[in-house]
């Protein structure tokens, strides 16, 4: 729960804020190359078969981030990145297989389904008694690591940025 400008507005302008995992990309094992989930190969008789591996890596990712979700029950996993789904036929075929297989081969209690941010938000609202951490500051400056600060746009050539 983010409460901007608390000094002036208190909680009047508060907004539920969700910080995504792994930037805005898919789980780490799927982001090695663009659209790695396209490459789900479901034929177990062939050497290239990788559905089992893909499924376990998805479940591992969900498992790892599950504790950072406030209600520990509903979570959102993004599949998409810069200019993905240019071949939606492949992308959806891969995702279909992955979701089906993961739901049938449960190693833990996880239920996967297609969704949108709106549906996820609705699911969050159904949960009661969840306490959200309150944040009262901004998120500047942004840096990726100690040597890569994204702060130049505050200082360089401000006249050009009016």
């Amino acid at each position, binding site marked *: 729960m983010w409460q901007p400008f608390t000094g002036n507005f208190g909680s009047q302008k508060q907004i539920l*804020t969700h910080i995504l995992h792994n930037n805005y990309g898919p789980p780490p094992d799927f982001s090695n190359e663009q659209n790695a989930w396209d490459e789900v190969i479901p034929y177990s008789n062939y050497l290239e078969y990788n559905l089992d591996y893909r499924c376990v890596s998805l479940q591992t990712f969900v498992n790892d981030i599950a504790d950072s979700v406030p209600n520990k029950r509903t979570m959102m996993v993004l599949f*998409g990145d810069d200019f993905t789904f240019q071949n939606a036929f492949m992308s959806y075929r891969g995702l279909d297989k992955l979701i089906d297989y993961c739901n049938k081969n449960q190693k833990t209690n996880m*239920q996967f389904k297609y969704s*949108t941010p709106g549906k996820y938000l609705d699911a969050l609202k159904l949960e009661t008694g969840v306490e959200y951490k309150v944040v009262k500051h901004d998120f500047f400056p942004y840096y990726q690591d100690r040597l890569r600060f994204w702060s130049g746009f505050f200082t360089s050539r401000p006249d050009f940025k009016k």
Partner: protein
Amino acid sequence: MDKYNFIDAHNRKMEKVYDHDEKVTKGRKPTKELNRRENQDKYTLDVHIVPHTHDDVGWLKTVEEYFTGAKPGNARANVALILDTVINELQKDPKRTFTYVEMKFFSMWYNEQDQKTKQIVKDLIKKGQLEITMGGWSATDEACPTYEDIILNMHMGHDFLWNEFRVKPRIGWMIDPFGHSEGNAALFSDFGFEALFFSRMNLDMRD
């Protein structure tokens, strides 16, 4: 000199092949063990898989080049192709969903379609299979623009959405700006967004 370059290129290529092979063999036998979570067996984790795409409205090439897929040497990106194929695939299975954000590209594509396709898109949005999130003309930066710019950007996108589909996006989707300002969050709250999703954040600030 050329010879060495060639060998270098060859080695790089072989490395790639080798990587791929390793992934394939890794694929045969999953080696990872799942950590046990607390209360793991008591309830089911509901995992929402959200297919989406992030289409920069101008970055390595111009908006028009991105839309048409021209200059693949600069960036292999074709937004018209994304929307064409996605709309096609969504019709095949009512379970499938998609999330789209950038109204600049969406309106460019939508205005090119015939009445039949427009109706299909309207139906998909109505059914909730295609969700427009944020719906700004593009995703603004949060450090440089003034209030006016941010409002205008959002207004143009929402205007298009309301005229064509009578929908109003519910969620702020700032997945690529570098840093997030209080001013933007306050504006989003005033726009009537129910939630704000973002991703870029300092590692120190993450829990």
